[in-house]
């Protein structure tokens, strides 16, 4: 499939393709397709790859030039993500800062914050982790209890955060805190930027079900940060945090869907090798897997077409995540079934093959970024206008 947005963008695309041809070589090329939103495999190689991208000025395609970006538009961002996925380059280690922190700062940060924090993101000099979820605040994010109090010109932060992806690598955290002790729920929250290199911050890895130390829990004990490092207004942290979550989706699902297409192709090849295509039950599920990834593609293209036409994306932009995550899990189950008895065996040190890893990690896709149950609430309430559950 080609995404074609006309001659001007074609030049951009060709420049990018040439760059990949010259730079996605050697060790980087050997790590094609490695890593993912919850997959910390080959971290050091991927970090080096991010620096390679940075040297080529390919990080922050849509960010303003004054902060080190290319200052290009949404179409170029989409083309970049698409070509990136097409080249099957290693998954960017800095994706959290690029996809979440950066856009949040661009939307809600003050000038000093943007100048201070955005260039090091694009230079891959500072890595970021998200401090949103807590042991008692998962889907119900508004019940965060991590406290932040002003002490002169610093904030003092106490509490615990969890599920911080790639947290052990983070130099900085963006943390949702409660700054008004008498507030409830969405009120009285503030989003703070907190450096990890201090005694008050302890980050412990959590091993995920694939055996990787991919995410972390974060203990904040009198952790300190500057009074000037609240993003958005003090007490309006919910708005800031939601702005981050709203930024996702538009461009992020397209590369993911290309990965799924690749997996579906591999699955069909595997089925052919195993002679499974003659089994009518498996055959049906294989065709359905292919249908799923094709529907994801068209759904993403619909959203992209609307975004680039300056329209508000339709309901499909909201339903896409639920569909893709669920169907991807089915694809994973099917791939494992087709792998047969060999799928039961892993390598030394619990080294998983692509199929096993993708299957296991797909279980996170219906949890992170708003679980499927939360997605259904959002669709039911915000798209269909059904009444909210009364609070007890």
């Amino acid at each position, binding site marked *: 499939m080609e*995404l074609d947005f006309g001659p001007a963008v074609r030049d951009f695309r060709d420049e990018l393709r040439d760059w990949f041809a010259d730079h996605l070589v050697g060790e980087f090329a050997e790590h094609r397709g490695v890593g993912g939103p919850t997959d910390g495999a080959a971290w050091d190689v991927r970090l080096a790859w991010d620096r390679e991208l940075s040297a080529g000025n390919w990080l922050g395609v849509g960010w303003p030039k004054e902060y080190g970006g290319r200052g290009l538009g949404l179409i170029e961002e989409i083309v970049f993500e698409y070509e990136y996925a097409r080249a099957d380059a290693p998954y960017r280690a800095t994706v959290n800062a690029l996809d979440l922190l950066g856009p949040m700062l661009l939307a809600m940060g003050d000038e000093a914050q943007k100048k201070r924090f955005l260039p090091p993101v694009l230079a891959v000099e500072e890595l970021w982790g998200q401090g949103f979820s807590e042991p008692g605040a998962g889907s119900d994010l508004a019940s965060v209890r991590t406290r932040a109090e002003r002490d002169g010109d610093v904030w003092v932060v106490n509490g615990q955060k969890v599920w911080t992806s790639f947290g052990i690598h983070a130099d900085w955290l963006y943390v949702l805190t409660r700054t008004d002790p008498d507030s409830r729920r969405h009120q009285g929250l503030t989003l703070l930027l907190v450096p990890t290199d201090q005694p008050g911050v302890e980050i412990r890895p959590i091993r995920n079900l694939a055996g990787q130390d991919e995410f972390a829990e974060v203990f904040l004990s009198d952790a300190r940060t500057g009074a000037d490092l609240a993003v958005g207004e003090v007490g309006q942290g919910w708005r800031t945090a939601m702005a981050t979550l709203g930024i996702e989706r538009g461009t992020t699902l397209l590369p993911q869907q290309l990965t799924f297409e690749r997996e579906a192709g591999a699955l069909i090849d595997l089925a052919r090798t195993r002679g499974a295509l003659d089994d009518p039950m498996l055959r049906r599920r294989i065709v359905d897997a292919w249908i799923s990834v094709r*529907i994801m593609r*068209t759904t993403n293209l*619909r959203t992209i*077409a609307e975004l680039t036409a300056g329209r508000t994306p339709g309901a499909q932009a909201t*339903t896409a995540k639920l569909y893709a995550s669920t169907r991807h899990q089915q694809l994973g189950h099917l791939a494992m079934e087709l792998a047969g008895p060999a799928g039961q065996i892993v390598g030394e040190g619990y080294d998983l093959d692509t199929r096993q890893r993708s299957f296991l990690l797909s279980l996170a896709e219906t949890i992170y970024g708003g679980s499927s149950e939360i997605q259904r609430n959002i*669709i*039911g309430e915000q798209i*269909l*206008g059904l009444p909210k559950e009364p609070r007890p």
Partner: protein
Amino acid sequence: MDLTFSEEQDELRKVVRSFLTRHSTEADVRRLAADPRGHDPGVWRRMAAEIGLQGLAVPEEYGGSGFGYVDLGVVFEEAGRALLCAPYFATVALAAEALLRCDDEAARADLLPGVASGETVATLALTEDSGRWDEPGIRLTARKRAGGWRLAGVKTYVPDGHLADLLLVAARTPAGISLFAVAAADAPGLTRTPLPTLDQTRKQSRIVFTDTPARLLGTDGTAWPALARTLATASVLLAAEQVGGAAAALDASVAYAKIREQYGRPIGSFQGIKHKCADMLVEIESARSAAYGGLWALDAGDETAIAVAAALAQAFCSEAFTKVAGDTIQVHGGIGFTWEHPAHLYLKRAKSSEVLLGTPAYHRELLAARLGI
């Protein structure tokens, strides 16, 4: 690349919806469902005269407006929403398309203008007692006699076959599959029997041909590719109709879930119902992608892409509509199970449409064959 609707297409949707809101109300649908003819010729004429729906995608040289398939898909989606009782699918998606695909310029020039103007109700008679939509399923024979071609055999499950002025008949000659035209009104040796249908909003007929004179369209023995292509187009348009039907069913479910109270609050505030409605929307938006992907493929014109998209659209949208229509009854509870409530009209349209152009399993096989699976 343009996978979004233009302002003109949005406007077309508004116009069609407004027309159908007035002329295909639930009362109209129920009246026509109970009527053996199953359609209102007055409304049919206004569809043609006021908005030119029959000729929308017919090229201008044959008296149509020359719009594309995305535009036509908008109309089918709206027709599906309104459960329009009219020979629109038979005439436009099947017959007009078969005429456009066959290699007979003279026949096109003769027959299409009547179809485009709404004067001619037409249909495609392809399936027989086997219910098959593939080439080997065509057994009805055509033989060349001194006075011309004669047809012998039986066609059944013919959409709106009882109404059609013009029957396009797929037949087998010694040379292979051929397409014939029969002017139904005055053709000798033609017996048409309406079949009582589960989905009363779309009528079907059984048609017996006994030495019936017919006009050969195009070259003898070469019609199958054009017919297969016709079925691909019809599959996509039916998918658009299914999307519209499913969307209307969900609208009804949501409206009811907002007002129906149990345990002192609207049932739509319970996750059991809310999440069911959300899943229905996921199904519908995915079906939209399947159907719209087909419409865009039709306008782009790549034959391989069309065959793939058409099979995918039927494989997916058929089951999506049935699922949503079934869930609509569930959301409504007891009232949804009654004859009085319209939910069953959607369920029956869905279940019947699911097999109208071949079962989802058949379309999966078509898709698998195209993909080399």
